């Protein structure tokens, strides 16, 4: 493609936007609303996932070991657990009987050993591994694996916690896909409508172009540029608004609701935008491109 033709196409695409000013503004506004909603939804989902992940990282399987194992056997067992083939392990801590007892005294008797007297026997031979998984949905496989290992006496797990978290993650995934699909469809429909109007306004011009030997690309180019530009503008505006809003909201919630500090850790705006910015722009431009292509395919036999 020659440079002059490229700039001509670009210029005509911009002119198309100005010619159908009201439709273009409506499309940009709706596209912006869609991307804005997508951005809000994405931020909420990422923060929710962050909370779930924080909870997940606290879910552990406790594997009690036989009391007669040597230190060497314990080390070997730990290595076997860490390198198991069924679940990725984020942390595997060995806890001696003394440490387990101290933990009970600290947590349940406020550090008062006298009060805890008498319970010590119940915790004899309580050496165990606290095993944390990267993905709690692999918990049941890990438990089966641990139960089959020599030297493991008993395995305790919190099946309900793992199931709830796995289900929550799955639900978030499904809802995300559904909402994104709806937003994309709405936006494609709107861009398609704008380009459609552009085509009907310029039907005569297109007919002339075809008669004097314009290629398909020459005819389609300005409409594609129009769609892409609408998509681009319609995504840049909401992304910029979201960026400044997100920081303000985090600051506001942090200031006003201190009691949420332990439960809620917000993902920093830069981490969110590392994904949201390129995805938002690609979505906007992609929807613009697809919307105009679909319409051109339907209405222009060039």
């Amino acid at each position, binding site marked *: *493609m020659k440079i002059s033709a490229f700039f*001509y196409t670009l210029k005509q695409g911009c002119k198309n936007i100005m010619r159908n000013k009201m439709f273009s503004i409506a499309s940009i506004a709706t596209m912006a609303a869609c991307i804005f909603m997508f951005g809000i939804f994405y931020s909420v989902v990422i923060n929710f996932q962050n909370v779930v992940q924080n909870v997940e990282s606290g879910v552990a399987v406790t594997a009690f070991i036989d009391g007669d194992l040597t230190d060497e056997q314990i080390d070997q067992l730990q290595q076997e657990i860490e390198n198991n083939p069924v679940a990725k392990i984020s942390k595997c801590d060995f806890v001696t009987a003394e440490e387990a007892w101290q933990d009970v005294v600290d947590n349940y008797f406020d550090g008062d050993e006298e009060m805890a007297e008498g319970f010590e026997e119940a915790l004899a031979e309580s050496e165990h591994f606290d095993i944390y998984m990267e993905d709690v949905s692999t918990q049941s496989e890990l438990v089966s694996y641990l139960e089959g290992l020599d030297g493991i006496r008993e395995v305790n797990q919190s099946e309900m916690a793992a199931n709830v978290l796995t289900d929550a993650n799955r639900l978030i995934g499904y809802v995300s896909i559904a909402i994104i699909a709806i937003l994309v469809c709405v936006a494609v429909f709107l861009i398609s409508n704008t380009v459609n109007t552009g085509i009907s306004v310029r039907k*005569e011009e297109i007919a*002339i*172009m075809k*008669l*004097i*030997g*314009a290629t398909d690309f020459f005819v389609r180019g300005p409409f594609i540029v129009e769609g892409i530009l609408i998509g681009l503008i319609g995504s840049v505006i909401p992304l910029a608004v979201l960026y400044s809003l997100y920081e303000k909201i985090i600051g506001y919630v942090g200031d006003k609701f201190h009691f949420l500090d332990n439960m809620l850790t917000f993902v920093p705006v830069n981490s969110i935008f590392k994904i949201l910015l390129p995805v938002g722009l690609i979505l906007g431009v992609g929807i613009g491109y697809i919307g105009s292509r679909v319409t051109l395919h339907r209405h222009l036999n060039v």
Partner: protein
Amino acid sequence: MITLEHVSKEYVEGVPALNDVSLNIEAGEFVFIVGDSGSGKSTMIKLLLKELEPTSGKLIINKKELAKVNHRNIPYYRRNIGCVFQDFRLLKDRNVYENVAFAQRVISASNRSIKLNVPKILSLVGLAAKYRSKPSELSGGEQQRVAIARALVNEPKILLADEPTGNLDGHNAWEIMKLLEEINERGTTVLVVTHNMDIVNAMKKRVITLKKGVVVSDEQMGGEEE
């Protein structure tokens, strides 16, 4: 240059718009196609522009069989044919210069050649001074001149004119026909579809007469007897 071999076109099965038409037009000829409404004149122009496909028969333009020109190559084929219509088909929101330059942009001509060719062709059609005017500011004859300039700026070998004087008064119609004759004298093959028998009779060119889709006469130096 233009050959039709047993060409028929039916829009509705059994009702031919063109019926077994065969003719040959040599390079550099000036030919009138005449006939009543519904005689098949416009269908012939559409077939030559490959806007329509014939139901049967063969069209050969510039030694190229049209049936073999695929969809992708139609634009390149059309660049060798200039066309002018009764309703001018100018872009109303652009001035004279831009309307003519538009044809050059369509073929991806460089800005440099546009700046060179457009004024030259506007001088040829006598509109160099009005290059900034919008079509609405021009007379019918002037608008048709712009359309002719646009058709010629890419230097096509063939110029098809479908009722080019249909919307013009007698004086302007003559001016346009003189311009077409001048273009023909420069080597372009010109095919004019018209109703205007005064002009046809006066110009003494080849005349092909169509009636109900059939060629009923083909005369060199044709025209009705006075």
